[in-house]
């Protein structure tokens, strides 16, 4: 390789590596801000912000959903299977909202440690299958894989 090409190659490799290191440092510094939501364990451990809104993500615990028949008010428990947080919400829920579903709620901790949500989003997992397969899995007593909150646990 002639010297001019070698020099250009070294410069460009240094540029890519430098960009990588700079990005890695910046992302490490902002690690906290890059998390889209806190897990119920983090909330219970007091790692979530106290005096501003934040998001909490977890699975809707089976049998925990209570709806007010007169209004749109609903309350449910979000869990990461280790800890859980009670959530209150008033409004329209996404279509995917159901027990066992991954949910991300945005709001703040209110009185009595209940999380008062202003927005509820559904987080689905990476599993896709036809309804018949899901039914067959359930009939065979095999658990349908749920890993929407694998990382959060």
């Amino acid at each position, binding site marked *: 390789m002639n010297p001019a*090409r070698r020099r*250009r*190659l070294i410069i*460009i490799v240094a*540029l*890519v590596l430098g*960009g*990588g290191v*700079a*990005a890695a440092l910046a*992302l490490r510094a902002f*690690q906290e801000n*890059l*998390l*889209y*939501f*806190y*897990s119920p364990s983090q909330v219970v451990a007091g790692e979530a912000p106290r005096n501003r809104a934040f998001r909490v*993500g977890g699975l809707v615990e089976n049998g925990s959903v209570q709806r007010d028949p007169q209004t749109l008010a609903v309350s449910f428990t979000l869990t990461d299977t280790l800890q859980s947080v009670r959530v209150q919400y008033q409004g329209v*829920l*996404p*279509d*995917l909202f159901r027990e066992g579903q991954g949910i*991300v709620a945005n709001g703040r901790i209110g009185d009595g440690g209940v999380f008062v949500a202003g*927005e*509820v*989003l*559904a*987080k*689905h*997992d*990476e*599993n*896709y*299958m*036809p*309804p*018949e*397969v*899901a*039914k067959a899995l359930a009939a065979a007593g095999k658990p*349908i*894989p749920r*890993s*929407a909150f*694998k*990382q*959060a646990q």
Partner: protein
Amino acid sequence: MLERLYKYAAPHQFFALSRALTPWFGGAAAALLAVGLAGALWFAPPDYQQGESVRIIYVHVPAAWMSLFVYVVLAAAGITGLVWNVKVADALARASAPLGASFTLLALATGSLWGKPMWGTWWVWDARLTSELILLFLYLGYIALQGAIEDTRMAARAGAVLAAIGLVNIPIIHYSVEWWSTLHQGPTITRFDAPAIHASMLVPLLIMALGFKAFYAATALVRMRCELLESECNSAWVTELGSGGK
């Protein structure tokens, strides 16, 4: 082998090769996309959770894959052009930018359309969506840079430097769903375990992905010929081409 490859680094040789290859890639793209769409819209089953809405995956995922793939091609071609002075590589980088930007926009738009019914929102600023938006801005920046610098050689060099720095965003986009908690779900197919998607949905998805690849190849080849004609307009082979010779 390398010598045969080397031959096609000459613009006029590549021009002829590109002419021969374009119909093959174009035909493959048309066939694959027709079969893939039929599979996606009719033969694939609805999802057990998402119902019919899942069908947007057959456009969203191939577009998102292409947005990353085309960027890597663009950066690699730009660096090759910068270090080894290969004009065909510069043409490939320049031809790829608007295509990559289109795939990125398609991935963002279809993702938004999918997010509204499933998540309950058009857009969130989580790590995956934000880094993909930054990718769109990288493409637009590259295109603007090419437009702003008159001298094509200079423009190609400046573009290559921009593309090389932007490369760092590619692993960030891919791993964002694993490194940070995001609203976007984790990887279904590009992971170490078996794909988490049923075969009846995986097959049309992969056919669509191949169709997108072939479409990119065909359009990139046509665009590269335009780029070469423009940058080589004073050379003998273009003059010969212009005067009716083949």
